[in-house]
């Protein structure tokens, strides 16, 4: 006989991606896990409201992001760094090796507004469809597409990325080889 899977069991499989998403929102590991912990507790006490067969991943991610935005309203963060300072640091870097490029990328990514960052993480890093990301965020599919597009454009501007002239190896095999070499040499 078919047994309806318990969302408590299914939830476990989504926690790694949920931690990644939390990290993208709060930007430090312990705070990200605080957010995940809070989301697990909320989800656990609300499983009676979850409709079996619907998208558990989107449901969990929605709980986590609601927790994040409600905390954010309490403690509004300000980005202190100015555009000029960021650009100056980019031009000062000595070598365009993989590690530095990654550092630049992360700093650039952190400068995106929250809405663009979360849309890019869901779609670009975690493989959500636009529809699933829209369900998670609670907005229209077109809004997600627009945020992803604007986030990518902003990053391309900040990092001065151009087609074919990458600061990081664009070929996946080359990327893997370079990152191995970097870790061996570093």
């Amino acid at each position, binding site marked *: 006989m078919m047994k309806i899977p*318990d969302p*408590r069991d299914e939830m*476990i499989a989504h*926690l*790694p*991606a949920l*931690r*990644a998403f939390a*990290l*993208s929102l709060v930007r430090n590991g312990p705070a990200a*896990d605080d957010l*995940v*912990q809070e989301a*697990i*507790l909320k989800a*656990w006490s609300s499983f009676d409201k979850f409709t079996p067969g619907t998208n558990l991943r989107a449901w969990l991610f929605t709980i986590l992001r609601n927790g994040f935005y409600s905390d954010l309203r309490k403690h509004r963060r300000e980005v202190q760094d100015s555009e000029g300072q960021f650009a100056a640091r980019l031009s000062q870097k000595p070598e365009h090796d993989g590690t530095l490029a*990654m550092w630049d*990328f*992360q700093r650039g*990514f952190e400068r995106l507004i929250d809405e663009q960052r979360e849309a*890019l*993480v869901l779609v*670009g*890093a*975690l493989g959500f469809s636009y529809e699933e990301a829209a369900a998670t965020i609670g907005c229209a599919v077109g809004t997600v597409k*627009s945020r992803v*597009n*604007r986030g*990518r*454009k902003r*990053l*391309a501007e900040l990092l001065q*990325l*151009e*087609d*074919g002239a*990458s*600061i*990081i190896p*664009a070929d*996946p095999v080359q*990327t893997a080889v370079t*990152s191995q070499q970097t870790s061996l040499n570093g």
Partner: protein
Amino acid sequence: MAPKDKPTSKIPPGVVRQIDENLKRIYAPKLTEELPERLQDLLRQLRERDGT
């Protein structure tokens, strides 16, 4: 809408690829590492409490 916002203009595919590959590289470790002890403990406690 600000003048520099041009959501309809195309981003070169190579740039999109670079960005998405780097995003995946940032978050890949979280997807493969074990859950931290505190979260495992929390799940254990919840299960024990509910007897599930």
